[in-house]
């Protein structure tokens, strides 16, 4: 029989274990460290109030992230959008099929070098974080849950309250935008022209 302290122990364990992930996701969602802290604290408070709705401890992650996503949508969504950056990434050309690989891959260089690998090697953590930050909100959410947190599509769907197929299609577009953003960023830093130099002059 459950004792009075049991649910608290479970709650404490879940919250403490997920704190890093919650904060990391909150940081990308709010794009602001102070808002991220508030969002996590609000999530923990709401989760405590709703602890009876956690029926299956194995589902604690999606449960917590769902609470945080809902908090974010109701409180922070209005604040953080940056239409200018979003327009740059998902601009007029609406390049939903953008592929970094296709931009980088040069088959005739196969035996001289590997531009794709070079590109990835030069990416800093900050470059990726900036590219995620530049994504429109719906796309940022799926990228954070699936790519960063490693959620299965089903769990991401449950967390966001959308069908699995919507997760899949959003991810597809999100990844194209993310790769486009990384490409633009790299081009600005001169990573791309440098790789072109690999081509022999002869």
């Amino acid at each position: 029989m459950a004792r009075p302290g049991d649910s608290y122990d479970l709650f404490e364990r879940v919250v403490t274990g997920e704190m890093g992930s919650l904060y990391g996701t909150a940081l990308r969602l709010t794009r602001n460290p102070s808002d991220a802290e508030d969002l996590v604290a609000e999530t923990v408070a709401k989760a405590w109030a709703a602890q009876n709705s956690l029926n299956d401890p194995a589902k604690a992650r999606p449960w917590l992230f769902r609470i945080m996503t809902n908090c974010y949508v109701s409180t922070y969504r209005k604040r953080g959008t940056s239409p200018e950056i979003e327009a740059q990434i998902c601009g007029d050309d609406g390049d939903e099929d953008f592929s970094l690989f296709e931009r980088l891959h040069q088959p005739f260089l196969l035996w001289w070098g590997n531009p794709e690998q070079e590109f990835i090697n030069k990416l800093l953590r900050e470059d990726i974080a900036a590219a995620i930050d530049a994504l429109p909100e719906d796309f940022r959410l799926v990228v954070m849950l699936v790519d960063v947190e490693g959620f299965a599509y089903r769990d991401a769907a449950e967390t966001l309250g959308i069908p699995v197929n919507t997760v899949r299609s959003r991810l597809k577009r999100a990844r194209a935008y993310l790769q486009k953003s990384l490409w633009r960023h790299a081009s600005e830093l001169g990573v791309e022209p440098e790789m072109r130099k690999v081509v022999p002059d002869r």
Partner: protein
Amino acid sequence: MTDSKKPETVREIDCDEVMRQLFDFLDGEVAEEVDHEIHHHIDECRSCFTRVEFERVLKERIRASKDEVLPESLQDRITDMLKQFGTANITGPGKNRE
């Protein structure tokens, strides 16, 4: 007779099919059978292998971009909240108030 015994028969799929399922495959969202088919294909197709490897490594880098370092202020805040919840939990609703 020397019939080569295959431990399992894997359906042959083409490059287009691999590309169509590329991300589902990398995300571990394809059925076991499809997973085998794609592995079987990329073992023999350099072009698909290169593409799959690129996306796999990029995905790993995105995952590794995770920023989990908790600010001390947040850590303290959550510790205080948990203590408060713990007290409320033991004393029961209302009893922890003065």
